């Protein structure tokens, strides 16, 4: 009986150590990745215009407490500023690739009220959330057209003049004193603005210290991902040669 308990305890401790170690390594080793449908990278689905959904940036402040407990504090003001920052950064990179950008909140010529547009945006965001649960787990299935937001995305006024809908979602944790544990990630999801089909997902985990500027932190990696898939009107070769 005593031996069984000791074996169990040893096993539990080993499992705990492995789990902690794997979590730590996973966060360090997470690398940038992107998943796109072939029609995007092959140019069969040319992207000349994009409709930007309102950004969703979420920053949390981590406070270490005694005995390994942690407090996670919301920092809404900083989150709002950061959201605007990551949106501006993504927008500028799309523009740099020759893509016209419109905001999803823009009524254009629809004559729709701001409230009506907000309602559609909320519906579309909820749908993305529902689809994301599986999509983030199995992003490779994007290539097989496995995920769609439905053609309700076509209710957005910008769908008339755009090719894709762009979702910018970021998350980050900051420690009061800063340091190597500060980290942020950025997900850029692109969907066909007429059918809602998910075309592309870019996941960026730059690692290292988390500076205040989104451009410095994410910009270079985003540029590489966009160029590798030929997104926009600037051909891949031109970008690579730096012209």
């Amino acid at each position, binding site marked *: 009986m005593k031996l069984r308990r000791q074996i169990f305890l040893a096993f539990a401790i080993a499992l705990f150590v492995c789990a902690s170690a794997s979590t730590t390594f996973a966060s360090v080793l997470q690398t940038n990745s992107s998943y796109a449908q072939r029609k995007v990278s092959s140019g069969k689905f040319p992207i000349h215009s994009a409709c930007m959904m309102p950004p969703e940036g979420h920053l949390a402040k981590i406070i270490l407490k005694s005995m*390994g407990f942690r407090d996670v504090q919301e920092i809404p003001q900083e989150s709002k500023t950061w959201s605007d920052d990551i949106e501006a950064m993504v927008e500028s990179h799309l523009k740099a690739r020759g893509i016209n950008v419109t905001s999803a909140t823009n009524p254009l010529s629809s004559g*729709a009220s701001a409230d009506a547009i907000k309602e559609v945006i909320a519906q579309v965001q*909820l749908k993305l959330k*529902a689809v994301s649960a599986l999509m983030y787990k199995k992003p490779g*299935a994007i290539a097989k057209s496995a995920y769609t937001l439905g053609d309700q995305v076509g209710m957005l006024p910008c769908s008339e003049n755009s090719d894709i809908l762009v979702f910018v979602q970021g998350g980050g944790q900051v420690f009061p004193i800063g340091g190597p544990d500060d980290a942020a990630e950025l997900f850029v999801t692109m969907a066909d603005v007429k059918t809602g089909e998910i075309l592309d997902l870019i996941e960026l985990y730059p690692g290292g210290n988390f500076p205040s500027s989104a451009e410095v932190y994410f910009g270079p990696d985003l540029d590489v991902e966009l160029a590798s898939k030929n997104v926009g009107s600037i051909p891949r070769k031109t970008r690579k040669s730096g012209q």
Partner: protein
Amino acid sequence: MRKCIVAVSFVVFCSTIVAQAASAGSGAVAPNVVQAQVSNGPGAAFQFTKVDDALLADANAIDADYEKKGLVLHDPGLQAYIDAVGKRVLGDRPVPEKVTYRFLVLRDPMVNAFALWNGSVYIPTGLLALLENEAQLAGVLGHETAHVYERHPYLENRSLRKKVVASKIIEAAASSVPGGHVLAAASAVAASDVSTLLLQESVYGYRREKESQADGDGLAAMTVAGYDPHARAATFELYDKYSTLEYEPPFTLFNDHPKVAERREQALAFANAYTPRDARTGTTQDYLAAVLIPIAPAIVSDTNTDIENRRPRTAVVRATRLVNAFPVDPQYQLLLGNSYRALGAETALPTKEELTSNGKAQQRKEVLNMSEQKEQEALLKTPEGQATLKENQAKAEKAFLAANQIDPQYALPYRELGFLYEDELRYSDAAANYQQYLQLVAPNNLDRLRIKRRLAQCLSHQTGRAHP
């Protein structure tokens, strides 16, 4: 060792009930015996510490957060009804120190009520929509208030604080929280990790002994209040049926949490022994009038959430409840039609095969590994799947046509009929309904653009040419 203690306690509990039932005679009233089982908790024996006070502040923060986020449903009529039932269940027992009992309706689709340690009892709209009468509601309130009387959250908190490993449990718990549930909102509360974990325990259940104690106390309290405790057993039956509808990631922090069937048996044993002759249940009609009318908009929202989140069976159950209660409201017929359309090739109730352990594993695999489209494609590969799709499409059409018949000027059923006919490749019928829809909606309606696109596609299918 603990299993042995639990087993012995269960045997003693059952034998006590059987013995008392035998002495009192089946169905006979034993008010004093039941009254004696209503616990007031540890009372003065529970002394507040600094740690407890900090936890109390967290509970108040959670209350404020729900209120701020608009999650608490305020309807004077509904509130008065729930307060009256709650007050009856509490009876004249002394209110514990630093507790103010408040019964609050939470806009949330889940079917678990929960109580915070400061006395706030949250009853989600999802649960209210599932219950059938006042006695069932009383049973739920009896159970939740018992956790507060017994100081379970505080005791659990003291126990958790001794375990550093708790922080790891929190991480595991947070990663398995299903979307759309109240915990998503709760996670935003700036409370300590321990109180977040406690909130999860409040929602998903405490350890076995605490749940069993609350079950016993709750049954006694509802019986003393004059309600029929059989209603509690019936509630467990409802939970059981509901829980088999869809695959949910299993969420419990304790693997010794009592099973629903076991709790139902205990409730039945209690009810057979102690139900007073004049025990009340309340009629379903009265319950619906008091509860369903005010929460109907929340149920509509919950049902739409179910549809969006791959829970079409639950959506059908909720929409059917609304249609049965309000058969001449076109909005609910529309909702029912949408729910059947969302089912696609899936059956409305789980098949016998799905309820087996192999079937459950298969369902788990489908939900966790396949997108909705891929799951439907797989179902449609079988003749049964194709037959089910036709059956569900027929039911959806019937509901949409019923909505049309009730109010021919209501635009949405035409659009949904268009979608349905497009699924069935009936392009001409789809086009006719889209045209009808476009005639009825306002010129600046945001939906016009996509319906025009769909209409053009349907027309091009008819004519074989691209339509502008």
